[in-house]
């Protein structure tokens, strides 16, 4: 299995010279399985680059395909790229959207993007691709040959963390999850037990968190702690705050690991970086 990061920024896309290394696009991760099958987690603006890399907008695609996208929740930074996901504009493409929400809730939220107000598309049904909505039930389901399960995250609004298992490997994806001690966090940590890679919200520093408790995001420290408790081999800190530059994050992590070298001894710690591909 391969994990490819297309969007690592939280809240709002943040283009700029200071954010180019870790990336300015919002949440989107692609998991590659064998035989070219893949699964996309969230449709932040990273998904636009994902589609463009495969087929530029101006090129008519040579082949059509199936796309599987799991949406964790409907905050803008997790669904906005879908309006510009090029495969929806070509006939023959099958785009399957999944979430732990009832499928009509998923459908309503996606339809709202295409009512003619926010782009020239005035009805989702006018899109040339076939778009289908599915619920991921309690206990999970198969998608693209992988097992996908969800449990609720600790967040101000309903949101789910996701675990994708394929063969002997598993990847955990916890966006907009607040990792402070709580029963929900314990459930999330237990759910993530044994994942190879944990991709975890790490929006705040410990100091920033003091004034932002209850906002539904984790600190860098909480994300690392959750990864250690879950026994993950790697943690990728993501959902970077829009005003955290590459240098800010790199220095912060370096100093944290200098003060607490025991953290890096228990889990491989990375700042999630747009374009990075992790093989497991």
């Amino acid at each position, binding site marked *: 299995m391969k994990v490819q990061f297309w969007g690592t920024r939280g809240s709002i896309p943040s283009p700029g010279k200071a*954010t180019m290394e870790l990336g*300015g*696009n919002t949440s989107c991760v692609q998991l590659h399985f064998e035989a070219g099958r893949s699964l996309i987690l969230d449709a932040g603006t990273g998904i*636009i680059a994902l589609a*463009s890399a495969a087929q530029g907008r101006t090129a008519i695609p040579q082949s059509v395909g199936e796309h599987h996208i799991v949406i964790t929740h409907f905050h803008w930074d997790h669904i906005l790229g879908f309006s510009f996901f090029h495969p929806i504009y070509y006939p023959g493409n099958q785009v399957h959207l999944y979430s732990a929400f009832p499928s009509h809730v998923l459908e309503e*939220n996606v339809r*709202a993007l295409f009512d003619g*107000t926010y*782009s020239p598309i*005035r009805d989702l049904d006018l899109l040339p691709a076939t778009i289908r909505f599915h619920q991921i039930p309690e206990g999970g389901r198969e998608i693209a040959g992988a097992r996908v399960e969800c449990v609720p995250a600790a967040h101000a609004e309903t949101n789910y963390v996701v675990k994708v298992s394929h063969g002997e490997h598993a990847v955990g994806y916890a966006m907009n999850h607040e990792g402070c001690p709580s029963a929900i966090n314990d459930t999330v940590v237990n759910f993530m037990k044994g994942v190879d890679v944990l991709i975890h919200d790490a929006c705040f520093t410990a100091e920033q968190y003091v004034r932002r408790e209850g906002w539904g995001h984790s600190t860098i420290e909480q994300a690392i702690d959750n990864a250690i408790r879950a026994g993950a081999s790697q943690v990728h800190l993501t959902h970077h705050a829009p005003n955290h530059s590459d240098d800010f994050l790199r220095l912060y992590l370096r100093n944290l690991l200098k003060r607490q070298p025991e953290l890096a001894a228990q889990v491989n710690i990375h700042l999630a970086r747009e374009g990075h591909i992790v093989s497991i």
Partner: protein
Amino acid sequence: MQVTVYGTRGSYPVCQSTMMRYGGNTTCWLLEVGDDLIIIDGGTGIVELGRRIVKRYPDGRRIHICLTHPHWDHILGMPYFQPFFLPGFEITIHGADSPRKPLDTVLSAQYKPGSFTRRFEQLSATVSLEKVRPGEQLSVGSTVLKTMQLNHHGIDLGFRFEHDSSAFVFLTDLAPIKGNILGAGMLEASASELVCEQAYMNRLVNFTAGADLVVHDTNFTDETIEGRLHWGHSTPRHAMQLLSHHNDPSALVLSHHDPEHTDEMMDGIYMSARRLGQDMGMEVFVAKEGGTFQL
């Protein structure tokens, strides 16, 4: 009048290192007229602008936001504009109703439960909405703002700001109208397509007359517009053809850069537009994030 570019990318923000010289943020421009702060559009560029305003005026300030239209790239940054969350700010949003949604619904939908953690009605700043009908003239601080509907999907406003003897015209998301009437209600209000097209062109020529600077959508090139006229955007050539109606053509700024245009491609587009401008006796600039113009 000082004009600063905070975002000039079209369609969606781009975050590639090959596009950073021209900038990746979507449309947001700041117009400073004396002490008045007038913001044009709330694309992602408005996020950084908000941070700067809060730093410069920590106790608050009166701010005007003029929205051309509610396509994503023009409102995407609004929920992350910091002054909305601070009580000292008085913010007036000027914009037109959309054919399918009134302006207040468009804005509050950005903050609806499930989409955002806070609600539009509960923002700490004092926020008011001023609905603008296309063609209407209004006062924004000490500046006169003239408007007209542009040829784009739905209702898209062109702006002309006049103060003392200076005039600044902002035209984004407009397409050539010949055989391509896109604006909501435009054809219905005319006797025929021909009448509609001619009346529109006359309005547009008058609207830009005597301006010191005209910002114009130039998303496409002569090549890329092929088959995409109905997408609602123009080329540098279209912008120059418009301004060539005037004896003393305004200076032109190319804007709304295609999200697939790298810096290198933009350099090429700018150079050939400048050459064409020289032939036509026109000064041509290209919008770059962080760039400023003094009128």
